[in-house]
């Protein structure tokens, strides 16, 4: 027998209770980051299967594209790739010489040497998230030892960092999200700043740059590695506009990210030793590490 009226203290009471729980959960998640494991569990067991299914058609199309492309197209592609590899190897040869030279010079200055980084290729799943947030879902997760805060880069530059983690997937926040900021440095002058996202995937904003700072349109900005979250010296963007409004204490500087934030399909997850640890090493430690290699 169904009751005709559903209103009554029980529904109102339950609603109130759920509202209070929601608020507590929101505070715990946003302020204290206590609920990453809960989110990870939901992500792994409930959401990931759905994402997997949604991603299938895209994967199928890609597979079909690869399987049914003609002999000639594949040959052309192979030739192109071979050429690219050759070019890359040539510049790598130079790079290794430069790297050695750099290490030697740094040793002479008794500065720490750059420590090698490990990378893993991940694929961006074709899934839509909130269009007002700049986020992507990657197909690698805790199973691949991905961690929260890990940087992701593509072939052109820094893309963002991992913010949520499931067993087999990870959600990454792009550097263009309004809530994201990355410490950067102007490559030419060494000027340090912070690049904030604007919500537009083609625009970053460099804040707190004084009017007389040495910065020009076209300057390359790279990650400075300060804060220890991002590996240093990866390209982040290029300065596209500088305004110095009279009466304001800081210039308005806009940059364009060099990473293909809305086009890349394959990205790299980077493991790097946080510089905080490196600073604590004594020179002798660095040297012995070098010799071990």
């Amino acid at each position, binding site marked *: 027998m169904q009751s005709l009226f*559903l209103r009554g203290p029980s529904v109102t009471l339950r609603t109130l209770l*759920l509202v209070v729980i929601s*608020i507590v959960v929101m505070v715990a998640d946003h302020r204290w980051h206590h609920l990453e494991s809960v989110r990870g569990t939901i992500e792994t067991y409930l959401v990931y299967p759905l994402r997997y299914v*949604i991603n299938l058609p*895209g994967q199928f199309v890609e597979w079909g594209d690869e399987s049914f492309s003609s002999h000639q197209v594949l040959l052309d592609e192979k030739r192109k790739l071979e050429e690219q590899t050759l070019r890359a190897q040539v510049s790598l040869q130079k790079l290794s010489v430069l790297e050695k030279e750099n290490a030697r010079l740094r040793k002479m200055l008794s500065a720490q040497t750059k420590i090698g980084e490990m990378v893993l290729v991940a694929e961006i799943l074709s899934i839509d*998230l*909130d*269009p*007002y*947030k700049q986020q992507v879902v990657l197909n690698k997760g805790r199973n691949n030892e991905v961690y929260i805060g890990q940087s992701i880069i593509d072939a052109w530059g820094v893309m963002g960092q991992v913010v949520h983690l499931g067993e087999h997937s990870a959600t990454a926040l792009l550097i263009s999200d309004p809530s994201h900021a990355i410490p950067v440095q102007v490559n030419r002058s060494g000027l340090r700043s912070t690049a904030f996202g604007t919500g537009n995937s083609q625009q970053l904003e460099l804040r707190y740059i004084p009017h007389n700072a040495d910065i020009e349109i076209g300057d390359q900005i790279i990650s400075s590695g300060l804060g220890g979250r991002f590996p240093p010296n990866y390209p982040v963007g290029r300065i596209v506009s500088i305004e110095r409004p009279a009466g304001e204490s800081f210039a308005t500087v806009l940059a364009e990210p060099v990473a293909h934030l809305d086009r890349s399909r394959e990205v790299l997850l980077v493991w790097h030793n946080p510089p905080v640890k490196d600073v604590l090493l004594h020179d002798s430690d660095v040297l012995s590490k070098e010799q071990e290699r």
Partner: protein
Amino acid sequence: MQGRGCFKVIAPTIVAALMLHMWPVPDWLAYIRPEFVTLVMIYWVLAMPERVGVTVAWCVGLLLDVTQGAILGQHALGLVLVVYIVLLEYQRIRVFSLVQQALAIFVLLLIKQVLVLWVSGMVGQAPSLELYFLPSLTGAILWPWLFLLLRNLRRRFTVSRSF
């Protein structure tokens, strides 16, 4: 009302709505994509308020939070309050014509969006508002068709008596 059997049709429709929410679409479509999950939840509360209530709404809202990468509890809060309003008013909304219903749904969707926006604003992640409420409009426009589709489904699976 055949015991728990009714979840055989309710759960799949909610899952389908979640998937539609995540389905990759061109950029312009993403901005006007209606909130299928909210629409489907409203339908089920209207159709069987004794089965689908605020607790289910909260759980679905939490799922929505994870799929959207939102703060946990953000969509859950919105969905719970919208479902609560529907629970108070379902007898009235049921006798509306489809157009009147669509108007009511428009208001409900707006309430949900405002609640979500309010939380985003409080944590300093407020999005730009130019197109923000378009999904409510498209959701209301889509309502009559969704309503008929879900009613057909429900009748085929003989989930409930009336409506």
